[in-house]
């Protein structure tokens, strides 16, 4: 037995063989392959960037561009802010069933009405935070771009405050860190947060007139919302008449298929005309909507020109298209401008009791800014006269704002300011009365002047409990 075991078990050949096997195993594990090599972890799926790739000047700039794309969609894209705020106010009526609850001002909490615009605006906030972090760390000397991003982040928050109820969570997505769920902020807190961002933007973008003016106009817009008219006027005093920050949209032909960042604006109907089975524009420019609405069509005002003729939808109504926006989805939507600056100064003058200055500011625009109207018109527009009373002057001021700033996302904020700062009741400024639904049914306008935060926020954000209040 001893002989057997010796022969089989402990010969030098066996030792060599075992040692060889272990050496081979060791070689596999140790010398040639690290754990990461072995697991092949250095390959990412297509269309996904290695996070390290973004950490370059070029990557940081690409992240900046990404923020601009998101803002474009959130502002004037399909289901963006201009569209949703236009439907809730008196600028647009829905022609189908798309945003019927918003249009009829019956928007109960616990649903996901207008969740798309809510999502898009927050996406701008998240993306700008990422891009700001990358630019700061990897693209030195990009202060003006960073300032630009702060401004766009602030505008997103202004839009949130204009459209949604009091109680908006401003959760944060830290650069290279975790996200933090925040509880709701009041409307005033959101405006103030935006103001702080704009302050930062102004200081960072001091070398870029374009971005600095955008930030100043944003600050003024916040100050108007907060009722601080004189400070608002001071902010925009240096903004020239011909200043304009425009968000550009591409025609259908430029669309990059298969990607969600559709560069067309909200008012395109080109795709419907060429292909009736596809998506179409579900809205129409309103005219005296719900009694209180302005006469955007019937006034014949060149600033709110419309065209019609693309058929009806479920509400059996003629669809009027805003002529200032090409039907193929191209063109620009003005985010901030010298016209807006002069209107702010006029409002400050009215607030100060300087009626002459107020009227002068308004007529100055009518005499000089008519050249900016699209489609082009003859000018100048005739001067206005003082209607004589404070209320009438306020009405005239807001009418002028509505027409100069038609379908640029200003009207909803103006209507809420009329309620909040000027003591008007919502029944005096928002559409009221009978509302004709699809297929001939009727209902009446509700009493909501803002949109509740979508229920999806409440389902996922443990710190969020809902709106603090509606209509404030």
């Amino acid at each position: 037995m001893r002989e057997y075991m010796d022969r089989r078990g402990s010969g030098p050949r066996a030792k060599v063989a075992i040692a060889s096997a272990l050496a081979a195993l060791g070689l596999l594990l140790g010398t040639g392959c690290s754990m990461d090599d072995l697991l092949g972890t250095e390959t990412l799926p297509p269309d996904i960037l290695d996070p390290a790739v973004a950490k370059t000047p070029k990557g940081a700039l690409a992240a900046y561009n990404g923020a601009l794309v998101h803002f474009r969609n959130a502002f004037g894209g399909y289901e963006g802010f201009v569209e949703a705020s236009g439907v809730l106010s008196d600028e647009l009526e829905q022609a189908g069933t798309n945003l019927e609850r918003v249009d009829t001002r019956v928007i109960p909490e616990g649903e996901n009405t207008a969740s798309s615009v809510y999502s898009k605006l927050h996406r701008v906030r998240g993306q700008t935070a990422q891009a700001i972090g990358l630019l700061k760390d990897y693209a030195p000397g990009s202060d003006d771009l960073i300032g630009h991003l702060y401004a766009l982040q602030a505008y997103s928050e202004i839009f949130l405050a204009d459209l949604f109820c009091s109680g908006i969570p401003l959760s944060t997505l830290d650069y290279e860190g975790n996200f933090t769920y925040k509880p709701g902020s009041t409307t005033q807190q959101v405006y103030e947060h935006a103001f702080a961002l704009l302050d930062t933007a102004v200081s960072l973008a001091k070398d870029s007139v374009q971005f600095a003016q955008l930030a100043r106009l944003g600050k003024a817009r916040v100050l108007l919302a907060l009722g601080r008219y004189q400070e608002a006027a001071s902010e925009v005093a240096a903004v020239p008449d011909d200043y304009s920050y425009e968000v550009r949209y591409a025609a259908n032909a430029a669309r990059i298929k298969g990607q969600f960042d559709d560069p067309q604006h909200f008012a395109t109907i080109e795709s419907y005309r060429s292909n009736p089975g596809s998506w179409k524009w579900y809205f129409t420019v309103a005219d005296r909507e719900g009694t209180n609405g302005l006469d955007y069509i019937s006034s014949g005002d060149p600033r709110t020109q419309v065209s019609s003729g693309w058929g009806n939808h479920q509400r059996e109504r003629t669809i009027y298209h805003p002529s200032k926006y090409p039907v193929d989805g191209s063109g620009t939507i003005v985010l901030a401008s010298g016209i807006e600056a002069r209107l702010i100064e006029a409002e400050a003058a009215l607030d100060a009791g300087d009626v002459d200055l107020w009227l002068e500011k308004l007529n100055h625009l009518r005499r000089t800014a008519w050249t900016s109207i699209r489609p082009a018109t003859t000018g100048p527009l005739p001067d206005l006269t003082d209607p004589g009373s404070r209320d009438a002057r306020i009405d005239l001021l807001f009418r002028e704002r509505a027409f100069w700033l038609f379908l640029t996302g200003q009207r909803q904020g103006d209507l809420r300011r009329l309620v909040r700062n000027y003591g008007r009741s919502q029944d005096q400024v928002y559409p009221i009365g009978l509302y004709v639904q699809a297929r001939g049914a009727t209902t009446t306008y509700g009493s909501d002047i803002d949109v509740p935060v979508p229920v999806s926020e409440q389902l996922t954000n443990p710190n969020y409990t809902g709106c603090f209040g509606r209509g404030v």
Partner: protein
Amino acid sequence: MSRRFRWMLLSLAVFILLPGGVLRAQAESAVPEDAGPQFLLASGQGRAPVQVEPGRLPVLNKRVTIDLPDTTLDAALGEISKQAALRLVYSASVVPLKSRVSLKGSDITVASALTEVLRHAHVDVVVHGSQVVLVKKPTQPARDDAQQKPGIIVGRVTEAESGTPVVGAQVMVDGVGRAITDAGGRYRITGIAPGKHVVGIISIGYRGTVREVEVGDGETVTVDFVLEAAPTQLSELVVTAAGEQRRIELGHDVTVIRVDSIMATAPVTSVTDLLEGRVPGLVVQRTSGAPGDPARLRLRGVSSPMMSNDPIIIVDGIRVYSELSTARAANLGGTGGTGGSTYATPSPLDYIDPYSIEAIQVVRGPSAATMYGQDAANGVIIITTKRGRPGPPSWRTTVERGFTETPGRYPDLHLRMGRLLTDDSRVFCPLNNWAGGDIFIGKVPCQADTVVTYQMLNDPELTVLDRGERTAVSVGVSGGSSTLTYNITGTYMDEVGTIKLPRYEIMRYRAERGIEPASWMLRPQNHTIWGVTLGAMANLGRSADLSLTTQLTRSQQQRSALEQQLGTLMSTYLDRATGTYYEASSYGRIQDVSGELLDRFYERATSNATHFKQGLALNWRPREWVTITSNVGLQVVSRADEVYSPPGGHDWRYQDGRLGVGKGQSVESSFKVHATSQLPLPGGFMFKLNTGVDFSNTREDDLHLDVRKLPEGMETVTAAAEVYYKRQHYSDRSTFGWFVEPGINHRRLWISSGLRLDGGSNFGSRVKLPRFPKLSVSYLLSDEPFFPERLQTVVGSLRLRAAYGHAGRQPGPTDRLRLYDARTQIWLGEGTAIDAIQLRSVGNSDVRPERTKEFEAGFDADLFDDRVKLGVTGYRKTTVDALLSVDVAPSVYGSGVKTMMNIGVVRNTGFELEFGVEPIRSDLVTWYTRTQLSHNRNIVVELGPGVEPFFPEVNTTNPASITSGIRVAPGYPLFGRWAKPVLGYADANGDGVLDPSEVVLGDTLVYVGGTLPNYTASISTGVSLFRGTLAIDMGFQYESGMTQVNEMSRRLAPFSRGWNDPTASLSEQVAVFDLTEFTWVQTVNSLRFHSLSISYQVPIRIANRLGARALALSVQGSNLGLWTNYRGMDPNVNARVSGNDVRDTGVLPTPRVWQVRLTATH
């Protein structure tokens, strides 16, 4: 190399090398004295056995403790056999079994025990592999008598079950090997001295047997043997992650399916067919009855809310691609932006040729699967292919031919026809006397005049159902020598499905398009699969062997959207006067669906897959006590899928023609090396150690392209076509693990423990390797001295077992990262397009693998001389750190952003019972019955803080208006079905007709039921007559407790009697207004007559005349009957291609199959 791995290597070396010295020390003192029988080692090839030291033979070195003061030799041998789990073969004519012996010894070797009890028995002990045969001591040479002439013994050895010859069996006369059976199973031994002799047969895989014969002077005596395959026993070897182990050593239950015997009697076309109904705890959910369609496999319920619940598949020690229910299981050409249908494609599991398989083992949970790594939490399917046996080439040819048909009739529709009061046009005019042509046009009054009974699918001219055909041919050859064995199997299967283009539509196609429909439109369902499998094993000297497996399979499946229209067609009325198809819309209104329906008649989906697998296994035994095994494997599946619609459709999406092309490849590579060593310890203990490392990598790379505006006649991507959508999917996942599995055995007790450290691919991050432990215990209670003697006559063996183990599922390789999407060529209005990146996912750096822990315990018993077998297992499987893709609140980065989180606990508890009984066992008649019953209870124990119950699948996208769906909620089954209930209804206005306002729906969703059955059972029974010449086998399957949406009820509600017969009750009307699916959900119970086979072994002489060594003919049928409370067509065809919902959308039910199979052995 990290310190961790240096330590692993060191430990590996220590564990391998340490036992050697101790083993030597033990072995030196273990030599028994030879005082009685001689110990001989069978040497084969006709040579006489050689005498050996018993200590050299492990089988004689097993330890027993015996205290038998005065007993029969028979009892003593039985005791030794039991304790050592030894198969002793002897004959009463050779061994004086009734003689009295005494034996007392503690922890002595088997050799010592046998020496003692056989001291005066005049027998020798011949060891042949694991079998020990007692033979008469050789007699003194015969007296030289000129009057005596030597005799001859001849005979034939066949297999009991199939009647085929047993090749290479060793025939012994009086314990001396004298002959090996030839290719015909025949042997011939000459020079036999006249007188009584004992003839014995030994062959691996069969029960040994002996027979006494008397050979006369110069006489030729024929002695035939019929060998029974060694039944499933505790000594059976099963495959584990650490190599082969005896079943008795395992603390968990494992199901072993011997494939050859099933293939001989059952209508099997795939591995899925082999598994269905043969594995307790396995639920097979089929996607449709179309040829080649895959099934979803669930072992012991579902555990993961988010990750795959598919088991992994190991073939010959290497891992193969096993994604059965992910999105990639669908046709790669049809999942893009075309809006076309989604088509299932054949399962990767079914690329494996069932004829090439020797055995399938199924381990069902982490308690058994720990050593397979972190992806093994859903169980492991282990497939062993054939390697061949020594002997001359043995050919086996199988030919199958049969037909398929859709069982049952579709229910008749009741149509109340009438005329519109406004324009007198003919319309459906249901009970409420309102009709309309479009849902938007409100109520239009109508006047009913007739009631029509109709069902398109039962109309011979209009139905799309026909008889299908099935053909299969398989040829195999196996054989080899003592140094090399081989098996080559080639199989071809072809099936034409039951769907056809009806005559009426052929004529319509001609009329509308002016051309003949293409040939594929006429019979759109076809599945062809062919493959070649080569398995070989070579002995590399005395201490090593090498196994090779090569498999090449080609699968071609064709189908069309026509089969997906069954749900629509069974609830559609064709107005033949106008050629218009009408379907009911909500509330009894109807709509013209002609365009949509007919477009879907002509969408073709093809899926072609080429599967190549190469596996290499090297076993090296450098020392007697250690074996090192290495497996290397590579599997490549290359797919080319298409979904094609010719131009000319009615709907604008189909007008220009379109083609979706999907090219995909998956590569699964694996490597494993492990060592097994044994070490005897003092006191009768045996220490065993398995340790090793393994690595597997799965890569998927798919490219999808959708084009439109195809020129007439073009079915390929051309320059003229417009690219509409393109996408690439790429995935690369790896796991690496190191495991150590120490175990100890003491007599009748086996304890095994283990620990596995696992690494998964995690891009850019180093994470702590998760640890997966295991512990198992097996105890052969019936062999204990205290086991009551009176029970021993009944209980052949009784084993208790328990096992506990962990396994997991790794998150995706990028789930930890914050990732960006590349958006190139973005137009921002500043001239040229620019590059942009946007956040894709927020990532979670803390995410860990999901961990499933399982405890199972049970017992196995053989009763009444192995006539009754009973196995019972209970289990409790808990998944913690369940991975969920949780919605991030939109205030962070908008909606649609998710992050992977370890949240939630899911538990499965249940039991599995296996019961086999053989009431009659004789040469003339054998009758067996086997029953499997399993129960599973699944529950979501908790979700983590901040995670609300959620709906992975709903029938609406608005959370505020969900009316039904699949929900994950604590206290309820994972993927339970929820719906808003119908609280009541009343005819408020007294008109005898319900309308929607008179049906009250609940405001909140309630739990309706689970989506997996609570109980599954299968019963198989068979009678074998005349030593297996004629056999009849039957199989039944039972399921209960699963709920599913009965699409047929929903679709047929507007055509029900309740909605068309004024005398119908309100309860018959209410289903029309149930938009929540509540009343359409059924809890299903079903009993299926699953299979029937009648097999006949053609007499040998006839088979020989026909040129075959053996010939078997069988007639087989499957899906022959269904007894169920389900109101749809087939309650068990319900799974979606991917995901977890079960829903009968009116898909093709399981076909009924009848076929004839002829098997010839050459």
